[in-house]
């Protein structure tokens, strides 16, 4: 990666930081409000980040390879270790050994963690796929394994097939 591109990406991630989940989740849990807003905020953040990454790196192809590249950049700049599992024309998957949900306060129940895991993964992954592949062109699944105590969580992205 060229130095100027790296600099621009660094500035991009400094500008579009994700909300602090360890603060937000207890608030939302207690007030019972703002879940939709959180999803929207996550979506907007990742949509802006995706658009800029594509612009900075000159990624023009609307395919899974670009989705994988964007995730690689996102994970690397958020210092999130990840391991790619599969990359085909219609499918991309990777696993992560850690996630913010694991670090949310101990008094937060598994049910609440699970709900917010869905909100965050749905918002973030949809933003990336919508902006790379086009609106509603892909789906994402995640197994929440980390929340349930397993060592790694797997995320799978697939193209929506036209029936």
């Amino acid at each position: 990666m060229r130095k100027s591109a790296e600099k621009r990406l660094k500035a991009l991630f400094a500008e579009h930081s994700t909300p602090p989940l360890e603060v937000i989740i207890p608030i939302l849990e207690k007030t019972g409000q703002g879940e939709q807003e959180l999803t929207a905020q996550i979506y907007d953040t990742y949509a802006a980040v995706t658009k800029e990454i594509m612009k900075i790196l000159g990624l023009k192809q609307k395919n899974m390879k670009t989705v994988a590249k964007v995730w690689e950049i996102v994970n690397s700049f958020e210092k999130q270790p990840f391991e790619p599992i599969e990359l085909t024309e219609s499918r991309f998957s990777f696993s992560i050994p850690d996630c913010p949900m694991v670090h949310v306060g101990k008094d937060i129940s598994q049910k609440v963690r699970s709900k917010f895991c869905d909100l965050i993964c749905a918002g973030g992954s949809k933003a990336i796929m919508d902006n790379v592949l086009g609106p509603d062109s892909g789906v994402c699944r995640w197994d929440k394994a980390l929340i349930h105590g397993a060592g790694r969580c797997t995320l799978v992205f697939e193209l929506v097939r036209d029936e």
Partner: protein
Amino acid sequence: MNVLKTPLALIVVLLVAAGLIITFAWMNLSMSNSYADLRTVLTTTTAVFGTMLGIITAGLMFTQGKFSELSSELTAKAPDYLSKVLVMEKMQPIETYLLALRKTFTKLAASTTVVEERNLYERIVTKASSIFVDFAVLLNLKLKQQGLPISQLLVSEMDSKLYGVYEKGLKDVKREWQIFTLIKQITDTCEAHTASFIEKSSITSPLEADLKSSIAILKLKEKGNKSLIDVRNEVAKALSGLNSEVGEISKRLHDDRIPQLLSQMKQASIIRGKYFYLALVFIVTPLLSNLLMLPQLSEGTVAFYQPIIAVTSVLSVMGVIFLLLYIHKILNV
């Protein structure tokens, strides 16, 4: 080696090592008991301790010289910073933003019942107050440098606790170069360094990161409370203003390599302080003890001095290890 940075840990390590050495020496008392052998051991260890003391004294002079050189370099830069970098046009808006943030987040902290949220807002108030006081101290020094009367405007915004911190800050700046410690403290408290998505929950975040977090929270809450839209906009404006003004100061600071110079000075200060006194205790004490024993050692007193010689001879080995550590530290200055 990081654990050795705290004086207490270093002293504990050295004391434990000294204890082990003494035990080891006592257990090996019977190994050598002839007068000639003991005299050779005593003379050798005395020479070793003497050499070590010489090296450590030279090290002290070197670090003292390095410290003076660095402080002169910083002192030469200080007037330029006070007159050209910390200009009134920059400082006034920064202080206005900080005051506004303090007021806003004090109110927000009082109105929330969620502990995590209150903690975040209180953190912002603490950091904004700390930067506010640091700037007030710098402003005071700047006005003094220019021969102008000290402004009471900022002081009037301080409560008794903050005023206490402000007065202490003023007293702490005894040398010109110490303004850089304050400026670095400001930029460190203010600026966010890229933190990971996961790290966010565990690190002590700077003001910038906390403000971004608060903006995210206010955004989530403003659906139910429209007045928060204005609050969020105000906070966003203050954040952007602070980023721009403090960012410029920080850039200049880094361009002039001030953080590196301050870090070198800190290192030199540690060596000429903590390490030097430890060296004195662990080298001068056995050296003096050897020098006192040397004329007294005879065929008749061998049995009496043997345990002490055993201890000091093993201590000399420990002293050499300590000396290597000391030299390593000096080379890193």
